[in-house]
């Protein structure tokens, strides 16, 4: 059931993401930066909030008027800022919910990823509380509605001795002091939200909390335009002597509010509370066991720290040496954090197929696919091929049409992530003439399933990140295709084009390899952008 839900969700996301890929290119597809966009919108809300605070009057009688002044008299700055404050917080709800849904359908919420999921679900409450307490401050009829309904909602809980709703029955009992309390809540809850967002990203390394600049400018421009064309307005001053009958709620934050009246406060508690609880325990329904975690081989580890630098999940730590060898440190894996992506092995300098096969154990290796097995699979995949267009494809298992590859007459080795490939495998395959060309196929650019795999591969190929692909490897024999999960036909076309190119080039020259310098050479491999 869960799986078919995820499959359907993946198809739905793929449909929309393909459209965005086509429009903007995968690098700045906002769907690949939903979490980072959440941070970005938070900062917009925070900055605009500070400006609004300067003019805001924290009193029952002054609040509405001060917001009206901002909106109308000072529309060019105050009004726009107010609208930005509102629309960015709405946008934050949208990206956060999409982020949640996307991580669910991609199955990135279970196993070692439970922590981010659980903290993320808890953040939803802070997000909604931040937004709703903000509507309160405008003190218009919508605010009055929110105040009364929220009070009813909380009164249902057996927490307060007396009814807080009674506070709102007439204007005499709502004091400035209570209003100040609301104001501080609207300040305090978002601060806790920010703290929670920081906690949320603790278990990953190099969390992307800023989307690409193009996305930032684009969304900010769109929000500003929206603010100018369709400014956020108040809905008439609150009047506690009358009952609010018609309001236009903000559906992003107040989705459940009408139900408090229509159903009952208890029912809405059941939906919101029960729904949150269900989401929170989802990673254990059922629990997923990750593939066996990375294993360190101390005789092959000198503590160089490259795996530590490249692990996307902070699962590798460097600790003092335990085996008596005169090195200062050694790598150590926390299996509770390891997703078995293999990116650590891809970074390990001893993970090279040129080594003696009997001793080929990398300093850090994946039990599921140790480098020795990777080497053997490479040889096995290429053995049946002949000609001058033998292509060896290393493909990430979460990526594109594996079926399309299988049918295209190339040797295929599937990896947990393209980042798990030590670059010297490419050097090995070409210089030892096991292949005429090597193609790396991964997820869509900017959307690596294992977060950093594609970034690291591109940097390793370009000689910008260790371990470098050696400059001697002719770059016109190396191709990358960041294909995403849904470009099977396109991928087959690219493979065919690459093979044709290799045929034109003829076989890799025998003897006397070009000794191009790795440090200085111009290293541009063939890059195929999908979509």
């Amino acid at each position, binding site marked *: 059931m869960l799986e078919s839900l995820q499959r359907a969700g993946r198809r739905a996301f793929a449909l929309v993401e393909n459209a965005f890929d086509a429009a903007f290119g995968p690098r700045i597809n906002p769907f690949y930066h939903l979490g980072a966009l959440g941070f970005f919108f938070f900062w917009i809300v925070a900055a605009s909030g500070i400006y609004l605070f300067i003019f805001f009057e924290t009193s029952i009688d002054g609040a509405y008027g001060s917001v009206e002044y901002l909106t109308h008299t000072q529309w060019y700055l105050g009004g726009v800022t107010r609208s930005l404050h509102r629309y960015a917080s709405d946008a934050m709800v949208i990206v956060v919910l999409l982020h949640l849904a996307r991580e669910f359908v991609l199955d990135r919420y279970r196993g070692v990823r439970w922590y981010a999921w659980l903290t993320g679900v808890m953040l939803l409450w802070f997000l909604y509380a931040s937004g709703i307490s903000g509507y309160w401050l405008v003190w218009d009829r919508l605010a009055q509605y929110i105040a009364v309904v929220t009070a009813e909602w909380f009164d249902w809980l057996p927490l307060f001795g007396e009814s807080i709703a009674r506070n709102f029955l007439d204007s005499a009992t709502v004091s400035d002091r209570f209003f100040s309390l609301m104001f501080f809540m609207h300040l305090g809850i978002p601060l806790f939200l920010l703290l929670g967002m920081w906690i949320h990203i603790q278990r990953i390394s190099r969390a992307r909390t800023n989307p690409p600049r193009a996305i930032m400018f684009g969304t900010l421009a769109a929000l500003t335009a929206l603010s100018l064309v369709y400014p956020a307005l108040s809905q008439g001053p609150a009047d506690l002597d009358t009952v609010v009958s018609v309001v236009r709620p903000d559906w992003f934050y107040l989705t459940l509010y009408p139900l408090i009246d229509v159903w009952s406060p208890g029912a809405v508690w059941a939906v919101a509370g029960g729904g949150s609880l269900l989401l929170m325990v989802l990673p254990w329904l059922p629990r997923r066991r990750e593939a066996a975690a990375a294993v360190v081989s101390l005789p*092959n580890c*000198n*503590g*160089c*720290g*490259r795996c530590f630098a490249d692990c996307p999940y902070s699962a590798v730590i460097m600790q003092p040496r335990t085996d008596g*060898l*005169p*090195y*200062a440190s050694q790598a150590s894996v926390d299996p509770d954090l390891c997703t078995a992506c293999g990116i650590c092995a891809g970074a390990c*300098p*001893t993970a*090279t*197929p*040129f*080594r*003696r*096969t009997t*001793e080929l154990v990398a*300093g850090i290796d994946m039990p599921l696919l140790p480098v020795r097995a990777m080497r053997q699979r490479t040889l096995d995949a290429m053995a049946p091929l002949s000609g001058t267009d033998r292509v060896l494809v290393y493909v990430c298992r979460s990526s594109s049409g594996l079926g399309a590859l299988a049918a295209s007459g190339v040797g295929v080795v599937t990896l947990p992530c393209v980042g798990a490939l030590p670059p010297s495998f490419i*050097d090995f395959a070409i*210089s*030892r003439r096991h292949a005429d060309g090597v193609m790396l196929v991964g997820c869509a650019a900017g959307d690596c399933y294992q977060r950093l795999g594609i970034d690291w591969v591109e940097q390793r190929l370009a000689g910008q990140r*260790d*371990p*470098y692909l*050696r*400059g*001697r490897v002719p770059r016109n024999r190396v191709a990358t295709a960041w294909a995403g999960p849904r470009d099977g036909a396109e991928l087959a076309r690219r493979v065919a084009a690459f093979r044709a190119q290799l045929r034109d080039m003829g076989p890799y020259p*025998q*003897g*006397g*390899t070009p*000794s*191009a*310098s*790795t*440090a*200085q050479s111009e290293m541009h491999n063939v890059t195929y952008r999908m979509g």
Partner: protein
Amino acid sequence: MSLIEWDEKFSVGVAAVDYEHRELIGLVNETYDRLQRPDAGVTVPDFLGEIYARISAHFALEENLMRAKRYAHFDEHKADHERLLDEIRDIMDDYEDRKIFDTERLAQRLGTWFTVHFRTHDARLHRQLE
């Protein structure tokens, strides 16, 4: 006979670096030894591959230390490392591509290649790595 003998003058004063240098000298000598046997064509590429892996790890560790200590001449030294890695790869490919290879010439290249690495350890680096 060994191709290279460990000499105290090689010591850079960092236990881990000295240890790896000794290991590498051992590997180079063993390779030299294998070169002179009849089955050299089969075993030597593997030994060269092993040297390549070990020297890669050795440089990786050294670079890590240099980064940690913010060694001022990091880029230069890193470029030296990459050049040496390119050279050992040249030696590997040359041996691989021409199976009948002048043993003495290979040994000489290997020996020179290795001692060049020692020369890259200048006094500035030692002071910083200690």
